[in-house]
Structures are given as structure tokens and as C-alpha cells.
């Protein structure tokens, strides 16, 4: 995203609130990657490397915030998974922690006592849930129930095997 120099009394940085969200295991294996701004594959790989290195190196009782380039990195560990969210430097870190927590709650509600294996074997569902919660780097829905209801309804819309086979594609 480009930086537009606007008249003096306006804010200068016009990028979206969240830049990327990564989920990775304690061994640094990636479980989910959501990018809110366009980036080349090379850049993404580098960021993933940098994030996993930085976050995994943190002492256990450190604060959950890091600085990386011009971004704030908010990370939190839930069981065996690290959630790593990058936000713009003028954004509210404490709220970002709540965003991460909310996503974990949504996953928990959907999978029932979610664990890393659920995310591994059902990664597409993890994305679907994320896409009902956030969009374009902003929060889309603030109600847990609404998000869950939407996912469940969408799941119902998915064809059963017979329906799938019998329905024409185009």
C-alpha cells in the first residue's frame, strides 16, 4: 500500500489496520497464513521466517508485543500454537490481543475444544471462520454467535457427496 502525503491535519498513513496473521507451531511449522496486503511469495517467505524466529526466541514471561520494521507484532501462545498478528504502528495493541483471543474462541466454539490437530486437518475451515470475522485487515463482525451461525449455515449449503456428484458443474 502506498503512503499518501495528505494536507497537514490529516493522518498520513493510509494502510489497513492489520497486515498479516500467522499461526505456527512450536517447531515453526506454519498452520495458517492470512495476508491483508499484496506481497510477493518471496516477501511472504521471508516474513514467515522472521516471525517464527523472533517469536520462538522470546522468553516465556515477556510482554506480547514486538517491533519489526514499521509494524507492531502481537503474538500469543495458545497450547501448542502461536498466533502472530502484525498491525500498523498507530494501532491499539491491547485490542489486537482481543482480536486474537476472539479468533481462538471462534475456533473453539466451532471445533469444540480446539487443538492444533483440528487446525491441521481442517485448515480450510479455519480460513472460512477467519473470513467471517475479519476482512481486508479490519474486523467484520463483533458477535461470536453471528459468525458461528454463518459458518454453520454455509456448511449446510455444502453439498453432500451424492448431491455433489449429481449436480452439474456449470
Amino acid at each position, binding site marked *: *500500500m502506498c503512503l*499518501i502525503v*495528505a494536507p497537514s*491535519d*490529516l*493522518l498520513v498513513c*493510509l*494502510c*489497513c489496520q492489520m497486515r498479516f496473521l500467522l499461526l505456527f507451531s512450536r517447531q515453526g511449522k*506454519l498452520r495458517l*497464513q492470512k495476508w*491483508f496486503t*499484496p*506481497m*510477493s511469495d518471496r516477501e511472504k*517467505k521471508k516474513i514467515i521466517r522472521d516471525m517464527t524466529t523472533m517469536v520462538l526466541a522470546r*522468553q516465556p*514471561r*515477556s*510482554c*506480547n*508485543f*514486538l517491533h519489526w520494521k514499521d509494524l507492531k507484532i502481537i503474538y500469543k501462545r495458545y497450547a501448542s500454537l502461536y498466533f502472530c498478528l502484525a498491525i500498523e504502528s498507530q494501532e*491499539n*495493541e*491491547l*485490542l489486537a*490481543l*482481543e*482480536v486474537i483471543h*476472539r479468533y481462538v474462541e471462534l475456533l473453539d466454539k466451532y471445533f469444540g475444544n480446539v487443538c492444533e490437530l483440528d487446525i*491441521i*486437518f481442517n*485448515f*480450510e475451515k479455519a*480460513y*472460512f471462520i477467519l*473470513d467471517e470475522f475479519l*476482512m*481486508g485487515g*479490519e*474486523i*467484520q*463482525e*463483533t*458477535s*461470536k*454467535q*453471528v459468525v458461528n451461525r*454463518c459458518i454453520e*449455515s*454455509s456448511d449446510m*449449503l*455444502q*453439498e453432500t457427496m451424492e448431491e*455433489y*456428484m449429481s*449436480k452439474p*458443474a*456449470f
Partner: protein
Amino acid sequence: MPAPIRLRELIRTIRTARTQAEEREMIQKECAAIRSSFREEDNTYRCRNVAKLLYMHMLGYPAHFGQLECLKLIASQKFTDKRIGYLGAMLLLDERQDVHLLMTNCIKNDLNHSTQYVQGLALCTLGCMGSSEMCRDLAGEVEKLLKTSNSYLRKKAALCAVHVIRKVPELMEMFLPATKNLLSEKNHGVLHTSVVLLTEMCERSPDMLAHFRKLVPQLVRILKNLIMSGYSPEHDVSGISDPFLQVRILRLLRILGKSDDDSSEAMNDILAQVATNTETSKNVGNAILYETVLTIMDIKSESGLRVLAINILGRFLLNNDKNIRYVALTSLLKTVQTDHNAVQRHRSTIVDCLKDLDVSIKRRAMELSFALVNGNNIRGMMKELLYFLDSCDPEFKADCASGVFLAAEKYGTDSLTSLHVTAVLSCVLAGSYVRDDSVPNLIQLITNSVEMHAYTVQRLYKALLDDISQQPLVQVASWCIGEYGDLLVSGQCEEEEPIQDEVLDVLEGLLVSNLSTPVTRGYALTAIMKLSTRFSSVNRIKKVVSIYGSSIDVELQQRAVEYNALFKKYDHMRANPNPNIAVITIHASNSTEAEMTDFVFQAAVPKTFQLQLLSPSSNVVPALNQGTVTQVIRVLNPQKQQLRMRIKLTYTHKGSPVQDLAEVNNFPPQSWQ
């Protein structure tokens, strides 16, 4: 042909691989199968295959051959296909590839689909990765959906509009009519995304900002309802109703209230209310308080409210939660310029944070501490900061040393000189953490604190014995040894003093070391030369100097040649130096980016003195401290009066002539007594 294996089956299989090589083999095998399946245009299993491809992509393997397949899935009638297809598009495609434009038509159709979840998929994809061209093509559809009564679609359309505006700012105007009654919505999702949309528009256009100021009362009302309303199970987070929406509204209020008295006044009460009523036991409450503080500080709030805000930050500093302490320090750093006195009241708590175990907190506390140093607290603060410099992690030493040096420079007074010099020495000894251009300032400081010369030269000499890689340190040390070498070997120091030859060994070592920059070599050579009047091993020094008379380094050569000349022409003065003649060498350096040419130094002295200016080494002073011009002045002072000099510098800089006049009155007493 057997059916391709299911996604979960593949995942299970890959996870059994014991080595990277084994995994790669499995992946390659599966990719080959998937590729041939794609070639056969198999509609039934395309979805399953793309899903598998997405899994392998997450593991880091290339999956670009699936891009077109994603497009085919998006175009399918089956919801299962669309879901995976759109996900695949978001993961594998990006706006920089032309291929993505093929999606435009599908998205357009799906935006008008009869099923809202399909419309939702299309909106989501467009809002996440739509390129400028796609946004231009589909903005009209988004605008239509922004006016729908379906809250599910309305909220998505709002965020999609935000994305469109970010990509194609000129399209912002077309969304204006649809914003008309966005805030009358009861649905929190729509409210939240609407506030985001309004915020985006206000941030981009002063006209929009002015236009939306009238929404302040409505925003205040919504916020008030959120705070006052009872428990709402749908939006409750630890007893607080929809904190995400509260924070977003506070952010928009900040933008609307900034630089506007009326708006700021209209939101004054609600801000005070949020600041005093929000539950602080959990992170969520503190997140809201934090945003409130940021808003209060940014708008034209009355002073009582500002003090309230800073006190909230002060309380944050005492919170057990590290995150909150960290956030407090960050915010205080932002407000320390504008509300300096209010922040000063929390100085002792801030200084305590220097001892925090958390690295991020320590850094913030350090930055804030430097910002709080002033003439009144310099003594106490310097003590704390020097202690910190001594004991902090290497990653901090650089910035801490710089900060200590700057603080000492700015607020150090005569009565604090030894404190000052200790501070400075600590910086220098902390390594290369002092900027190159501080070297002359450091030397000046050391010169001025006469009683510390012996101590200083001894410590610096010791440091050189350990490490000669840090150039600023080496330069300052060389200069001091050259100037105070007599104190170094004279037994004035507590520790075992080196002998003359050892000192010369060290300086000569600097001359030949690969680690020394040309500037450093210049310092070393000059120091050796100066020792010829302080040490007795003059012959050794003469030899060294004459060797460098043929150095490849022009700077060094010039110096050596001049010094050689001193040996030849003025050696007779060495044995019986005329006590009435002071020999002064000036070094002129230039830290700007352009060189100074036609450099001429002129000096005038009082009537009782006589002046002789020898020719300068050059009349070009290179840029960026890459070299110096030296010139020797001999001053005859038979009446032993205090030396004063008026100097005039003329040179050409960036094409224009420059003239600088100054008076020099602080020659050290040794030069004329």
C-alpha cells in the same frame, strides 16, 4: 482411474514422513497425480485436488499450476466448489498477476447471486485482494449492496467499499450517498464496518471530514448506549459490551475532534465517562481505556481531561500486566513533548521500569527516561542511566550511550564536569556506540576537565589494549595519549603505568592495523608526533614519522611530511624550546555532504603577540569527515599574556562563498604560561 485420495488422507500420509526428503517425495508424487487430473479437466475431483494443493502450498511447495483451477471452481455452480475456489484464489493469486482479472466476471455474477453466502464469498474475495481494475469494474455492485437491508451483506459491502477506496481513491465520492443512514443500524456488525468506512473516508478527504463532523452527537449516543446498556450476551466480553465497536468509535471521534473545538467539546463528557467507568481488571477494559487516552490526547480536550488521561497512563505503569506497562510507556513517550510536566510526575515509576525484566519495556523506559532529563533532574537521572548503561544488554548499549552523551552535553554544567566526563567515558568505553561526529566534541569535553586528564588517559589506554576495532574510541584514545602521554607514563595513575616504548608500540600498532580507518591513522600519527615533546624516545618517533612520509594514504603522507619538516627545521627548538613560543596546530574537518574548497584560515592576535602561519596541508576540506586540513601556527608571546585570537575562515561550499568569524578565548593555560 481410481479417485484421487481425499484431503485428510493426504494430510495423514504426509505427516508420517520422517524426513524432509521423504515428505518431498510424497508431495511430488501427489502433485503429479493432481496435474494429470487437472489436464483431464475432471470436474468431480477438481475441488478435492485444489484443496490438497492448498495444503501442500502451506507446507511451502509451489502450487501455481493450480491457479486456473481455482478460477474454474469459482465459476462452478456448486457451493463446495466456490468455497474452495475463492479460498484458493485468495491464497494462490494476487493482483500482480494478470490471471486474477479473469475472476472479475465470476465475482460480478456471484455478487448478484440468490444465495447470500455466495454473495458473501464474492464480497470477501473482492475486499481482500481486488486489484484496482477489478475494483473499478465492480464498485457499482458494491455500492448497491451497501444499501441493502440484509445486514450480513451490508457489513461486508462496507468493508469491501473500504478496500475499493484504498485501491481507487477517486471512487470515494460514489459511496457517499449510501453512508447516509449507516449509523442508524442496530446490527453491530454493520455499525462496526460502517464506522470503519466513515473513518477511511474522513482520513482521506478534508471535505469528507468536515461533512461527517455532524455525526459526532450520534456517535456519542451510540457509545453511551454501549456503556450504559445492560448485559448483552451477543456482544459481551468480560462484562464490557462490544469493546471492538467502542474502540472503533473512539478512533473515529479522535479524527473528528482533532483540530475542532466544537466537536471536541461535544465528546468531552463521554470521554470522561468512559475513562472513569471502564472496568480495568481485564485486558479488554484497558484496551478501551488506552484508546480513550489516545483520543483525549489528540483532540482539543480541556486540561482536566488531559490530566485524567496521563494519570490513567500512570496507573497503567503500576499494573501487573506487562503488556499494559509497555503500552503506557509507549503512550507517555508520545505525550512527553506536549504534556511534559504531567509526565514528569511519573518519573520515578518510569525509571523503575529500567529494571524491568522485559526487554521491550526496558527499551521504552530508556527512551522515555532520556526524554524526561532536564536541568533539574540531571544528577539523579544520570546516575540511573549510567547504571543502566553499565548493566544493560548489548542491544541497548548503542542507543543508551548516545542518549547519555546527548544528555550530558545538553544539561551538564561546570559543577557537574566530573559526572559529565565519567558519563562520556562510559559511552566511549561502551564501544563504537558513539557516533563518529561526536569525536571532536568528546575531545573538547575531556580537554575542559583538567583534573580528570590523568584518569581519562589511563582508562582509554587500557581500553585500547583490549580492543582497537571501535574507531571513535580509538580516535579519542589516540588524541588523549598524544596530549596527555606524559601523565600516562609518569606514575600519576593508581595502576601500573606503561613505559614509553609500550605506549609507542600501541600507537604504531594502530597505524598498521587493518581495523584502523584512514582518519584513525591520522590521529595515531599526530599523537606519536606530539609525544616527541613529551617522551624521550625521539629517535624512534622520528623514524616512524619519516616512514609515513611515503605512505600511499595522502592524508597520512602529508602529515608525516609536515611533521618531518618540524623535526628538521625546528628541531633546535626541541632542546631549548623558546618558552615564549606556542605552537598550535589546527585541524579543520567538514561533516557536511559537500566539500569546502578554497579554504583559507586567517588569524589575528592582540598587539603584544606575534603570529606566524605556516602553509596549510591543503585548501580543500573533504566532505563527510573524510579528511582534515592541518595548519601550524606559531605564536610569540613574550609578555606571557593570555592568548586570545580572532579567526576568520573563508571557503566555498556548494558553489557559494562562505565566511565565518569567531573569537577563540579558551586556549589551555599551558599554551601561553
